């Protein structure tokens, strides 16, 4: 709650993006923060945006088996993002 209010006061809406396993290794980061805009409101748009960081990013995020989660739930690409959402990208899971 508090976080969201702060975001609005600052006039920006942000999401935290996390990367795991192969995707984390490919992009070379564990976590980043992205500011939402009218052109950046869905998971698909977030992927396109991050892909502009370089070929490694574009390849990793266009992997056909990539899974995306918002607030710890697996979602489709057209999922709308809102302020303070936690987005995560990772390959198929292999626990147990």
């Amino acid at each position, binding site marked *: 709650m508090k976080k969201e209010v702060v975001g609005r006061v600052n006039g920006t809406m942000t999401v935290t993006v*996390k990367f795991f396993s*192969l995707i*984390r290794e490919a992009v070379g980061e564990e976590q980043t923060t992205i500011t939402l805009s009218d052109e950046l409101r869905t998971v698909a748009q977030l992927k396109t945006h991050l892909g502009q960081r370089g070929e490694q990013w574009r390849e990793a995020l266009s992997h056909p088996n990539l899974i995306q989660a918002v607030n710890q739930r697996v979602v489709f690409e057209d999922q709308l993002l809102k302020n303070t959402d936690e987005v995560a990208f990772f390959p198929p899971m*292999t626990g147990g």
Partner: protein
Amino acid sequence: MPVIVTANAIDPGALATEFFRSHPDAAVATFTGFVRDFNETSRVQALFLECYVEMAGKVLTSLGEGAASRFELKAWHIVHRFGTLTAKEPIVFVATSADHRAEAFSACEFIMDALKTDAPFWKQEHDGAKATWVSAKLADENRRNRWVEEDKTP
């Protein structure tokens, strides 16, 4: 707490003992997974198990609650390790209790099958020379889908 996701070593004997003591229901099933000491091509010396901790807790809780409702469990417990493990160390412990053995067995197997494909853990095997991310298995996907098929039956 029915779900534990931890970077510390887990003790399946102690977990089983405590579950039996707390839930001596007519039928109690457990499953314990240990790190393999081999894979398709070589000896495994260590396993790095990466985890999205916040999501893992939510997913495992949801799986346990789903199993409890679907199989009329009296109790359940899921414990999953992450971090760096050596060969033969325990990774996962699941226990289920019910009035009848069919339900206890099915629930335990359902949780394991669903956990394999739905819980955010990623295995990386180290054989000394190199580190290899384990690929998701089609067999696991198929086992997971058995339970979805059953969902559809009237």
